């Protein structure tokens, strides 16, 4: 197993390098970051020329990638526009721990901008993922054990409805019902936007209150989908021979279901959750935008629309590393859950 882990980690290095090249090329093709700079009018031509030169955007694409990777403090840049590079660069590059400075908030380190938002995203996504897993398991198992009953049909219908609704629809409807209209009707209501009310402060209760609607919106669709998956795998498992043997040997039904059946039925769910975990870092773009939650999803959207390569590459590489590591962890967990699986 140790050799397997080391081999996977070594394989990840060229993989991440290849991913970074692809992502960088794609990012630099999303437009000129100094074309409008978020303004209502285009930037004047002389300013675009100056900023492109100062920010290294006038260099060929492969040179920009090299600077991103290993920095430019070994090279000189032309700051005064006379065509002669005279000023040493000040970037150290990703391989030396620097993602570069944001093209939007010029002067700020891209990693600092990302690090500000990462905890907010984890605060929202981790509880959401836990709720999704718990409720999916509960509903899926319950539905499987009551196959073709009225309850099962009700859950099935609800799952189809929930799964087919777009996230922005659920988010906006829940906001209008529980925040806007409840307030209008004099009922206890939830807040519309933000992570906390700035006038109250960032207290645990305040943040928790603001988390309710975003988490509700995110989990509804996933629970609808995952519960169907759990139901399906559970039904498959409880019809296996070893389950029949366990019952024949007189084990309690609770032990048969939750020790023998559920453990095997949850193996495919482990794979799916393993794929989900790195995506937690990316946040939920739509949910965060609608509820104005200051997370990574919104950060990504704001900066990709401004073609801010350093920040966006930082986010994407973070997720890429997380995907590679989480896949490795998933494989290890899989082997632990299922003794039949062995890695060389």
């Amino acid at each position, binding site marked *: 197993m140790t050799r397997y882990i080391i081999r996977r980690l070594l394989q990840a290095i060229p993989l991440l390098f290849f991913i970074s090249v692809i992502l960088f090329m794609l990012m630099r093709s999303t437009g000129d970051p100094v*074309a409008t*700079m978020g303004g209502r009018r285009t930037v004047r031509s002389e300013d675009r020329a100056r900023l492109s030169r100062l920010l290294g955007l006038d260099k060929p694409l492969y040179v920009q990638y090299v600077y991103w990777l290993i920095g430019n403090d070994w090279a000189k840049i032309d700051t005064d526009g006379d065509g002669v590079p005279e000023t040493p660069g000040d970037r150290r590059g990703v391989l030396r721990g620097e993602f570069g400075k944001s093209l939007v908030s010029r002067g700020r380190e891209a990693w600092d901008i990302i690090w500000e938002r990462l905890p907010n995203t984890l605060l929202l996504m981790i509880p959401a993922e836990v709720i999704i897993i718990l409720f999916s398991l509960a509903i899926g198992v319950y539905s499987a054990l009551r196959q073709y009953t009225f309850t099962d049909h009700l859950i099935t219908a609800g799952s189809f409805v929930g799964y087919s609704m777009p996230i922005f629809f659920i988010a906006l409807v829940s906001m209008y019902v529980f925040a806007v209209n409840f*307030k209008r009707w004099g009922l206890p209501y939830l807040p519309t*936007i933000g992570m906390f009310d700035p006038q109250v402060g960032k207290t645990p209760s305040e943040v928790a209150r603001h988390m309710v609607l975003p988490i509700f919106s995110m989990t509804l669709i996933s629970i609808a989908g995952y519960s169907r998956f759990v139901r399906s795998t559970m039904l498959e498992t409880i019809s296996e021979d070893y389950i029949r043997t366990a019952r024949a040997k007189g084990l309690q039904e609770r032990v048969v279901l939750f020790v023998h059946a559920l453990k095997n039925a949850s193996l495919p769910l482990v794979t799916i959750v393993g794929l989900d975990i790195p995506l937690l870092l990316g946040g939920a773009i739509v949910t965060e935008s609608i509820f104005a939650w200051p997370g990574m999803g919104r*950060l990504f959207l704001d900066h990709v629309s401004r073609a801010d390569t350093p920040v966006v590459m930082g986010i994407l590489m973070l997720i890429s590393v997380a995907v590679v590591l989480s896949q490795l962890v998933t494989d290890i967990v899989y082997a632990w859950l299922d003794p039949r699986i062995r890695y060389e």
Partner: protein
Amino acid sequence: MKQKLWQLLAALVVLTMLVPGLAGCATPTPQVVEKIVTQVVKETVKETVIVEGTPQVVEKEVTKVIEKEVTTVVEVEKVVTPTPEPVRKVATFAWTQEPDTLNPLYTNMWFSSIIQQLYNCWPWEFDDQNVPFPKLVTEIPSMENGGVSEDGLVVTLHLRDDIIWSDGTPLTSADFVFTYDMAMSEANTVSSQYPYYYLDTIEAPDERTVVMNFAEPFAPWLATFWKGLLPKHVLEPVFEAEGSIDEAEWNLAPTVGCGPFVFDVWESGSFIRFVKSEDYWLGEPKLDEIYYQFVPDDASQTAALVAGDADLGTFPPLSDVPILEAGGLEIITQNGGYAEGWFFNFRDMASPGARDVRVRQAIAMALDRDAINRDLLLGLTEPAETLWDGLAAYGYVSPDIEPWTYDPDAARQLLEEAGWTDTDGDGIREDADGNKLTLIHGTTIREIRQDAQAVTQQMLREVGIDLQILSFDADLFFESYSNGSPAALGEVDIMEWSDCTAFPDPDHYYWYCDEIPDDENPWGANYFGCDETLDELFARQIATINTEERTAIIQEITKYMHDQVYWLGLWVDPDYWIVGERLTGVKFSGVTPFYNIMEWDLK
């Protein structure tokens, strides 16, 4: 056992909650006071009475119940009523875009520039009629008061003597010179060096005087210079230590400012908080605090405003206007000089139709712009005739312009006269050489523009013009020539976006011939073409200081561009403000929107 433990814990929790409550309910120490009270007492008195049936008069003791005032000692509870704290007036503004920086030199964002009016200052501001009034200066420089030299090469600012930064440091001419130096330093990646590069030199002969020396007369100086100042005493040490102010803390936390409010905190992704400046040299604003809460989604902004979670918003989707008004909010529009229109490409690579002025004129008559405004913009705007419509009050629009009216028959006739006929009966006209009258229309992905594309495509089809519609992300559409911008390369015949002049100045720079993009100038802004007449007119107006002469030149530009249909207006694009019920005293300017923020109050 477990149950008992839980019970014990619960009891402890309850006790812990009760103790503070009990402490809060404790009996106050009584006070002993003397008090005069009226008591009902029984008193035995001697009265002289006549014995019934006899003439005898005797003294008799009689007990009577009487009221008597006595001084008594009583214990009274001393009830201390705390003096209620004054309610703080806190307003929340819903902002759909988070600023990239709070340094006025480093941003091109309208959403950032507007916020700067709370904590920064301009030497003059503009009121709700977009008329300038002095702020830091004693009077607006002009030729009449000697502030502007006869040749227009020298502009002199005389500063007030009572202006200070929020830390008490006097605001002087040195801050103006420093701002100029930072804008022009190649070590700073400022968003724009315009218009500072028009200055030949800048001088500060004393603390109250700024002398701007131009190499050539620069007429737009009043509308373009000094949109925010940098505190020299804060940023100069940073520049000297680091060689640049790119990474200055002040850029994100401008704790020293010169506006009616002082920056307090910026919670990334959430809000920025400002508190009133108690040392502001013009007095204290009525609001105590302002929060700018970032709400990136339009529907969420509407929900927050209707729910009362925000007091001010901007640029709502027009379809949400009825919802907002039903929710008790007021929609205020303010002329900011912007207008949405079609820019025509008449360069050599444009299609023959786009290069034909008669085709452009036919297009102007084939579009029912009133219907577009009525149906797509819910009648909230009106057609724009020139890019200078926002300055019509200043007299810049030629009175000789005859607005284009919707007349598809006249459009067809003009196309026939121009030689464009539908010879093959497919509904699309061709010229004598068989070239189809096909024009390519490009714009950004904003929803209203895509709706307008679909509608105008249909309208032009009715007169035999084939409009092929394309849409691009803004940063791709306006990419450089060398990186394949469709607009810069001339791959589209008609480009649509919202633009304005150097409002409230009529200057514009798009149509200069040397702005046409090519390999030597990949960022050139003239995607349209070189017209020597227009080039000469624009070059002349920017250097004409005399108001009457300059107005005449601008009128000539507006008439020429209108007749040539180099720009065809679709709708006026004002600033939209959504004002909540709580806010009072609110007025907006199209140039400095928060010019009267000191008068804003909450009910």
